[in-house]
């Protein structure tokens, strides 16, 4: 315990030297809390009919360019509601350039995507369905398709009260469905609510490391286990980009499409992350702290799927992170931790406590197209 205390003081001291980390350095905020119900936006309240509609739309590939890619295509139930490859599947003819994140508990996040480019599930659904290496759908056509599915016409009328479905309403319904994909009865949650038996002794030792020597809590804190801030922790660039021509295509496309200088377009070989949003040199290589629940089912990990199991992740942190093209921006919080093998095992065991039963639902039956009825007047 003596060692732990010393480390804690040392980290806090280091943090105080950096004004921009001031808020996370307040020790009192740095604790885990049990996860309650997700926030529901006042302009998109939950109703059973809306959730049911959203579930169908989540599974419906017609909300994509060539009617082959649904939300579920890159967020598969049996792959942790994500995609079990380093980089996400991507639209046909492409590969994505980042790891697909789980949809489970996305409802709690105020910053969606790895660099936080969407502020809401509604906005995230829209971006994912329209991006060239994701859904590649176009709003007018997707909206038109919905109008030719009688069951959807009826459901949109019931839920939103309009004569014809609107694509923005589709994103609202999908978001409502996603707000039901909640994972807040994990061993960690039960323990934090007072059930001392919810965690094993090993997991409890791991929790102490999490909160102390390993200092995971500096960023993975609060009820969602993320501070939703952006850090460069030194994740190395994806080696997929060295070997896969299609991935090289997408990488350059992202630089081009998101807007970088000519010099950056020519020479950048790593994901600049949060830089795309701020265009500040100091934000290169930063990504939003990932939440930790459901991670037993969501390998591989990190924004580019660099690590294939939780032990590899912990070993990465234990080594003081790694190096990437933007290591000048690497967070000072990332330092060698000096964890023993046994301590690593304990920490991994605790991290596994953030996952409960796997969440599976029955895939809905998708309603067919039908011709529109005749109209008398044109």
């Amino acid at each position, binding site marked *: 315990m003596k060692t732990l205390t010393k480390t804690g003081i040392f980290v806090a001291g280091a943090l105080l030297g950096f004004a921009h980390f001031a808020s996370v350095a307040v020790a009192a905020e740095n604790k885990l809390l049990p996860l309650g119900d997700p926030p529901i936006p006042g302009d998109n309240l939950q109703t059973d009919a809306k959730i049911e509609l959203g579930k169908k739309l989540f599974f419906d590939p017609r909300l994509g*360019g060539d009617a082959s890619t649904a939300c579920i295509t890159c967020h598969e139930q049996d792959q942790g509601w994500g995609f079990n490859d380093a980089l996400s599947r991507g639209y046909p003819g492409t590969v994505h350039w980042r790891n697909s994140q789980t949809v489970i508990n996305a409802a709690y996040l105020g910053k969606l995507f790895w660099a936080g480019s969407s502020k809401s599930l509604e906005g995230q659904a829209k971006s994912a369905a329209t991006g060239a290496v994701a859904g*590649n759908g176009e709003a007018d056509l997707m909206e038109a398709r919905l109008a030719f599915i009688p069951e959807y016409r009826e459901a949109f009328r019931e839920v939103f009260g309009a004569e014809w479905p609107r694509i923005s309403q589709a994103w609202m319904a999908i978001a409502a469905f996603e707000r039901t994909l909640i994972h807040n009865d994990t061993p960690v949650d039960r323990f934090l609510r007072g059930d001392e038996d919810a965690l094993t002794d090993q997991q409890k030792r791991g929790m102490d490391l999490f909160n102390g020597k390993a200092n995971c809590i500096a960023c993975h804190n609060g009820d969602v286990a993320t501070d939703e801030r952006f850090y460069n922790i030194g994740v190395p660039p994806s080696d997929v980009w060295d070997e896969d021509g*299609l991935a090289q295509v997408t990488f*350059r496309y992202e630089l081009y499409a998101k807007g970088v200088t000519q010099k950056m377009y020519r020479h950048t070989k790593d994901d600049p992350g949060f830089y795309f949003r701020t265009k500040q040199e100091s934000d290169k290589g930063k990504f939003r702290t990932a939440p930790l629940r459901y991670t037993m089912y969501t390998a591989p990990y990190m924004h580019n799927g660099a690590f294939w199991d939780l032990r590899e992740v912990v070993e990465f942190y234990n080594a003081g992170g790694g190096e990437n093209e933007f290591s000048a921006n690497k967070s000072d919080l990332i330092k060698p931790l000096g964890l023993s093998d046994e301590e690593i095992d304990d920490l991994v065991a605790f991290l596994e406590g953030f996952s409960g039963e796997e969440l599976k639902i029955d895939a809905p039956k998708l309603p067919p197209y039908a011709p529109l009825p005749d109209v008398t007047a044109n």
Partner: protein
Amino acid sequence: MKIRVPEHVSKGIATLALVVGGFTAAATIPVSASAEDFGPIVAQEINANKAALGKRLFFDVKLSGDSAISCASCHNPDKAFTDGLPLAKAYPGSDGFRNTPTLMNTSHKKVWFHDGRIGTNLNDVTRESITETAVMNMDMRLMQERVKQDPVYVQMFKDAGYGEPSNGSIRKAIPEYLKTLTSRNSPFDKGEMSEAAQRGFDLFKGKANCAACHSGPRFTDDKAYNTAAPTNADIWNDPMRHQTYVAFAKFMGIENYMNLRRDVGAYIISHKADKSDVGKFVTPTLRELKHTAPYMHNGTMESLTEVVYFYNQGGGQDVNKDSRLKPLGLTSPEIKDLVAFLETLSGDLLTSSEHVWDQPIPNSYEAYEDWRNIAN
């Protein structure tokens, strides 16, 4: 009677006495050419390297969003760069609502697409076709990076003087290739017309008055008219086609698009308040008709005889129908003569390697070696 229009009014509006099937009427109509304007299409000067590059791009599925189709998927050289279908197939997940037009002599056109919505150049037409959701649904930035990943293209762009591949030069190279698609060796151009065809030509210029709109070397004035051609019910009975039209009409700013049950034609771009442009479509070329059935903007007519019968009865029924469309009073032998003439306007299919990229084009991408150390 032979209609002769002086050269100096060939691009304007002329008032002339119009004789159609025994009816004489004074009408103000656009006239764009005299009979003397008919003749071979003049081949254009081509930059061989640019055209060769454009040819490969034309046949490359990498230019569509999901890499499933190329320009040639609908514009098949074996059918004079059409698809033989009443209505085009469109991008996967959609289905088309118009007949695929031939690309023969397309670089001579002044407006493109059946509704004439583009009147600038083939660069814009290429952009529209590549990016339009229901056509190739391609983000051109991604297209550029795909092309840059293909070493054959990197060399071809260099040889063409474009430097490295870019989406801008892709849209220059394809039009350069399209310039090579020039009609050649038609019996009409070679002066090898049968007597029946010669009689048909006289009818074309005279009694049937086809030449009022089908004028010039391509036999079109590039203007839009309402001939009241029948609608194609398949568009409105098939949700895949209808939804594609809805998305198009919505995107183009047409009001009440959910309740449309007809193709509004040139109105899509003019938005004329009196709706007089509803149902107008651009006069199609008559070159290569033998290879490009079925006919009309929506493919509703299977044979040239059917088309001539349609005009002989004075076109279809519509409030906006062009006033010149009146029963022509052609006899059965005259109809045969006219069809014989129309058939003389078809020449060679351009199916050799001169016009077709017949080498395999890989649809996968090799990684650049030493990727981290080379410039993107």
